[in-house]
Structures are given as structure tokens and as C-alpha cells.
């Protein structure tokens, strides 16, 4: 498994998650978990996804999701999960 954390921050509107999920489906990326909170009109979303079956380079996925972020007017970041495990788990 090649677990990656995708975070999204921006102004909430219809279709954000659908657009991001479509991108994942098109690139053989499996979604393992989704969590989100909405504070006033802003959405904070985190997805844990598996890149195991994805044939594209990680750098391509980073760029691709940046473009998706621009399309839905949100900031999307993609990071390998280890950085969060290291920082928050002993």
C-alpha cells in the first residue's frame, strides 16, 4: 500500500468532492478514508488514498491535484502519510 494524505482547504460549494473523486477514479487511486469539517462557509477536507495501482509519477499527481484545486477554487496538498505519523505518534 502507498498511502498518501490529500488535504483540501477553500470556500465550500457544490461539486468539490465530486471533482476530486473523479480525478482519483480516472487515475486508479483508491480512497481509504475521508474526513471533513465545514466552518462557516469554508471546507477543510482530508482524504487518505492509496496510490498502489496508480501508474503515474507522484510528481504528476501533485501537479494534477494542484490543477484540480484551481478548478474548484481550493488549495489541495498531497503528502506521504509518514510525515504526519512521525510528527504525531511516538
Amino acid at each position: 500500500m502507498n498511502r498518501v494524505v490529500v488535504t483540501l482547504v477553500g470556500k465550500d460549494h457544490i461539486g468539490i468532492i465530486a471533482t476530486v473523486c473523479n480525478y482519483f477514479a480516472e487515475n486508479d487511486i483508491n480512497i481509504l478514508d475521508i474526513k471533513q469539517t465545514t466552518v462557516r462557509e469554508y471546507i477543510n477536507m482530508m482524504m487518505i488514498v492509496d496510490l498502489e495501482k496508480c501508474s503515474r509519477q507522484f510528481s504528476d499527481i501533485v501537479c494534477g491535484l494542484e490543477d484540480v484545486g484551481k478548478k474548484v477554487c481550493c488549495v489541495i496538498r498531497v503528502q506521504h502519510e509518514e510525515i504526519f505519523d512521525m510528527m504525531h505518534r511516538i
Partner: protein
Amino acid sequence: MVELNEVFETNTMICDENLDVRTITMGISLLDCCDSDLDALCGKIYRKITQSAGDLVRVGDEIGLDFGIPVINKRVSVTPISIVGSSACRTCDDFVKIADTLEEAACSIGVNFIGGFSALVQKGMTAADQMLIRSMPKALSRTERVCGSVSLASTKTGIDMDAVKLMGTVIKETAEETKDRDSVGCSKLVVFCNPSDDNPFMAGAFHGVTETDLVINVGVSGPGVVKTAISKVRGENFEVLCETIKKTAFKVTRVGQLVAKEASKRLNVPFGIVDLSLAPTPAVGDSIADIIQEMGVEYIGAPGTTAALAILNDQVKKGGVMASSYVGGLSGAFIPVSEDRSMAYAAEIGALTLEKLEAMTCVCSVGLDMIPIPGDTGAETISGIIADEMAIGMINQKTTAVRIIPVCGKRAGDRVEFGGLLGSSPIMPVSKYGCKGFIDRGGRIPAPIHSFKN
């Protein structure tokens, strides 16, 4: 499974509070390059560096992309060149040729600094040591990326006052050689007491002779993260303050540990250490002074500053030590005046003086760092400042350093702009009273009584 709040806490540190990995530094031993023929030596040095660290920049950038954390600098440190070049170099210009080779190798692999144009003379200077030191003004002024350091003292050996005197002159000459650029050559030259063999930070990085052939050392940073964390416990007692710094330092260091292990794996080079030092930059919100001021000191340099810095340094170590399997380097808080916007401001309004900075170096990890002083400061006075700092390191069994810049043509109160990470600062005044008689004595200050532990 990671939680939403943890993910956003990490990303806030990275995006809003300037958390980054300050440097991945590859230490490279050049001992196997030694040759009595200078051209052969330079050829071997170039090949060893470019072959060993050819992938360093690419791998550093890839790790940054994978974990979403900026890896700001990729650098190389090498065995002190006075040792490597001792049988090949007959003149100062021979050492300058090695500096040119280091510059060429650094440009070829794309690192922004290469450290190790160095000499270890804490007990005395060989002919090669003297030649390297005397070549520094020329070598450091004609290269952009080569950094030099000289170890002048240690707790075990005392202080080599002949070398201290020589360095006063060398610093003045280096300033003169780069007077068209605000004497910036001196920013690449540092003198040490008790230097660290595995320091990843410039300008003082070199690859110690007891180190393995190749090694990866990592320096993390995060003054902004610490400042934000303690701003949330404003008014709380020291127990709460210390715990907050400690926990934050743990998190920051864990990132360094991850990056160091990953770099080691991808480059197939052993992991050396993580340096815990909090290193500021001129960027807004990336300041050690801001942390001290957040603790309740009006401006850094005011009474209370030394105690506040001692707390910061100690808690960073306590938090960091548990976060990494190997901690080393300088590990503490840097206090470079021009590189820290709020520190430079405190100097400008007179809150921070050279004398207070000297006191602060008793409790922090380095010493008098990036301090511009008047260009007409005498060589003996610079040697006196160095001797004081060496004495603090020697007696307290800690690393101390001096990176001081006598800016040609400028006087106390004038402003100097070094640009980039080196920042800007007012010229700080130096005592007008001299110490020529003291410096001219020559010889060696004996090691202190507490160094005899055998």
C-alpha cells in the same frame, strides 16, 4: 490513522509558520584523495565530490515534494582542507586552487554552499594550517559557495592565541577583499572553540576526521512554530512554557528525523545526526528574537533575555533528543543578528548590544554570529572579541563561534544589506578601548583545570 486536526496542524506549521528542513548536508571524507601532486589532488577532490553527491540536490527536492515540506538547502561538507592539502600545497595560492576546485564541484552538483575550507589549530598551527588560513581572504573572496572555518580553541587544549591573533588580521583582509560587496566574504568565515565534527550548518560545517567516508546530517528549523505555540500560553507559568517548547521541538525534530532517514535510504549513505538548532531567517515570522519577546521580554537584549534564551535552548534539546535516534551538530538556538529581522531591529534601537550578545552566547549553541561592526575596527580588537568568545566556550565546555564582519567604509549606526538569507543589520558599535598588549603576547592559553578528567 492520522486525524484531521493533526494533518492540519502539520500543514499550518509548514504553510504559515515557516517550518522547513533547513539543510540536508552530505559529509564527504577527502582523506582518500590526498596526493603530493596538486593537480592530481584537485582532480581526485572534484571526482569524489561530484560522484558522491551528484544526486543530493535531486533527492532533496524529491523528498520535499513527497512529504510536502520545503527542503531549503542541499549542501556538502568535506574533511578540513588543511589536512587534505598538507602534502600538495607549498604556497597560499596552492590552497586557493583547492578552493577553486571545491567551488567548481559545488557548482557542478548544484549545492549552494560547500564547507570545510578549514583548519583545526586549537593547540598549534602546522605550516599547512598557516598557509590555508593566510589563503582565506583570497579563497573566500573569489568563490561564492566555499565556506571556511578555523578551530582556535577547545576545553581539552586551551586557546591558541597565535592563531587568534592571526585570525583578527585574516578577517580584516577578507573584509577588504570583498569591500565592494559590504565585506560579505566574512559571512563565509567562522572561528570556533570546541567545534562539532558533524555540524550540517554553514559557514562552520566540516566533515571531521573521525567520521565515516560519507554521511547525511540534517538541520531542521522552526522558530515560527515555537513562537506560535508559546503565544497560545501567554501569561502561563514557566512549567507550562517549558512543556510547550519541549513538545513543539519534538514535533519539529521528528520531521528532521524522517527526512534524514529518507535521504540516507535514497542516497545509500549512512544517517549521521539531526541538528536540533532553531535557525532563523530574515523572513517575517521566522525569528528567534520573536520567541524571546513572546516569552515576555520587551525587546531581545533587555534584562531577562539570557534567561529566556537558556530556557529555549534547554527545552529544544529536551524535546528534540527523544525525537531523533542520533542528535548532534550544534543543536540549540542560533542568534545571527543580520539573519534575524527582529534581532536586527533590536540592535537598531539600542536594545541589543555586542556585550549582551556575548552574555547570550554563554547559554546558546553558537556564538557571536553575523554581526556587522565598523570597518575601522582594529585587527587586535577583533582578536580580543574572538579570545573572549573562545574563553566562554573553553571554560563552559561548549561550542562557541565568532562570525563577525568589519564592513569596510561603514561606521556604527550605518546600515548594511547582505541580501538573501544573510539579511540586513545596522553596524553595531564596538568598545573604543583596545587590547593590543594582551593579543601581542602570543603563545597559548593553557587548558582549564576541569579538562583534566583522566
